[in-house]
């Protein structure tokens, strides 16, 4: 088992004919993902990386049984792409696109949620379960099947940490990059219960960053309802207030969203919080070893 994706996941790539869409379709297929369709309006009937392209998600779903979507559509059109996916019955939508206005995302989030479609992202690297399926853009090379779950607001930093886990001889159950925007479809507290109930996950790595209170809410959830060991890292300890640090969501504003507050909350909830990113794999390895001994 894994979280949200598995070998049965059938992916339609929205925006498949764009450069990113094409490159990552190839990489998803190399990972082992069943990419069954692509969509680009006006390009129906063509093929990209052997994958048939359709004019609409509805056509793609009815022809191929796609049940998940990976969205690369440019920001001004991403809202429409997501609504189309939801209306076509897609249950999992990974939105890689960055710079989507949060006003659009508010509409997308509520529309999807009220119809039972889960959004991951936007502005995210997606989700991958080694040996299973990947929907998104996380490099294939960092993975190795294993029992460590990872949830993160970052992209590259996640690759770095996931790779570190691999280099320490361990592997991942499922890794989810939630995205760096202020409004995301799936937050830590939405993802935590999935890992809690996943029998393939023994321990969890949580990578947070400054801005908002998602980590504080995660800490509260962990304290009350999460039974597996957690190793956390928070990026942005040195960031000044009032500045957006790359991610639209990474900003300390009006005194809220500091790294200190997040670290304190997570430690209070019993998580081990690393000071340096390279400590994360070490802590994971330690906990995994303890688990084996126990």
């Amino acid at each position, binding site marked *: 088992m894994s979280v949200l994706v598995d070998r049965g996941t059938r992916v339609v790539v929205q925006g498949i004919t764009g450069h*990113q869409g094409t490159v990552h379709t190839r990489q998803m297929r190399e990972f082992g993902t069943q990419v069954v369709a692509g969509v680009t309006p006006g390009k129906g009937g063509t093929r990209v990386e052997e994958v048939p392209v359709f004019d609409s998600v509805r056509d793609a779903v009815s022809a191929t049984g796609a049940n998940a979507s990976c969205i690369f559509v440019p*920001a*001004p059109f991403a809202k429409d792409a997501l609504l189309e996916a939801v209306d076509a019955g897609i249950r999992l939508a990974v939105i890689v696109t960055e*710079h*989507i*206005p*949060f*006003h659009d*995302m*508010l*509409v997308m*989030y*509520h529309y999807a949620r009220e119809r039972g479609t889960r959004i991951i992202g936007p502005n995210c*690297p997606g989700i991958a379960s080694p040996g299973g399926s990947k929907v998104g*853009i996380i*490099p294939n*090379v*960092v993975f190795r099947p294993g029992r460590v779950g990872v949830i*993160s*607001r*970052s*992209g*590259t*930093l*996640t*690759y*770095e940490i996931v*790779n570190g886990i691999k280099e320490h001889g361990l592997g991942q159950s499922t890794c989810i990059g939630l995205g*760096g925007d*202020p*409004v995301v479809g799936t*937050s830590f507290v939405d993802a935590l219960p999935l890992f809690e109930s996943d029998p393939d996950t023994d321990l969890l790595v949580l*990578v947070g*960053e*400054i801005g*908002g*209170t*998602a980590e504080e*809410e995660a800490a509260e959830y962990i304290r009350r309802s999460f039974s597996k060991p957690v190793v956390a*890292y928070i*990026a*942005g*300890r*040195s*960031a*000044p207030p009032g500045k*957006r*640090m*790359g*991610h*639209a*969501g*990474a900003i300390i504003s*009006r*005194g809220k969203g500091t*790294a200190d507050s997040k670290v304190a909350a997570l430690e209070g909830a019993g998580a081990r919080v690393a*000071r*340096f*990113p*390279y400590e994360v794999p070490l802590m994971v390895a330690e906990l995994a070893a303890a688990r084996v001994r126990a």
Partner: protein
Amino acid sequence: MVKLPEWRGKDVFRKYGLPTPKGQVVKSADEVEGAIRSGAVPLPCVVKAQVLAGGRGKGGAVRFANTVEEARAATTAILGLEFKGERVREVLLEEKLSIGRELYLALALDRTARQPILMTSSSGGVEIESVADDAIDRQPIHPFPGLVAYQRRRAARSLRLDGDLAKQLDRLLGSLWKAWEGEDAELVEINPLGVVGDRLVALDAKVIVEDDAAFRHPEYAEVRDDRTPLEEIAREEEIAFVQLDGTIGVIANGAGLTMATLDVLKELGGDPGVFLDLGGTDDPKKVAQAFLLMAKAKPRAVFLNIFGGVTRCDTVAKGLIEAREAIPEGERFPLVARIRGNREKEGVELLRGAGVTSVPDLRASAEAVIAAAGARR
């Protein structure tokens, strides 16, 4: 963030039918007389520096005038100020109103609920952070039906407004909601909302438009913000770039990794001075552009920390090599590189050819760059 200056925020308010004082913005004292004589600014008037920082009242950036001469003098005085590091370039002259109660009203984003939130408080006129939590009423607004009548009634109760003032508030909140949506705002704040006799008037206006919606708002393309000149260039070149106080420039890919790199430097005793997130690119030109921008910030040393994914290690190496030649003599800097991940071998090879050694260990490379930057300033 596109933070609109007060006068521009009030223009937005008027566009949506929100009540504001009569007034006019001027850029020189010579415009004052005309503004008053034309009737655009009644006397007595308030003269306010158009800066983004708060606390203008205490800082001498707001003055009062009873005559044209006083208004002119106040304008001259304020235009000469540098307020919290910001030079005053514009001054807003407005009718002076006789204010009864001062209220607080704002729409902001609640990230957790993924909803806009309407905040109201009868303790307006002070910074909202200083108001007790239970003196602020918070109502989440669902984006679909929007701000509906019963919520506007609750807002009126929380502000202790009734009769015609409650009706005015109802209309005002309708306009505020339209402004929130129409301007793609991340904050619309009226502080204070004044009770002036039997009228409600927005005495201040804070409107922040979200960056990502800029494509829908070309009208704000030239709004001056609190960015440094280099940050302004970076914005135009679509590079995530933040200037800090320290000496070490960091170029990394991905916001999280870049932040983490800064953090590592700081933890190890270094002093990071520039945050530069390359983002995802496979264009060496884009990488070169980033290095040239970094050079302009004059760091004592630069740390290049790449974990290749979408951005491949060889692309970064090529961009670096391209940039090195283009950087003027006086702007060159010592570089420590750590490149890992997608096309690591090719990238390391290319760098070695250019005389740069990639240090794969993060701690070791961070310590190397700290050493290269020398002692803290």
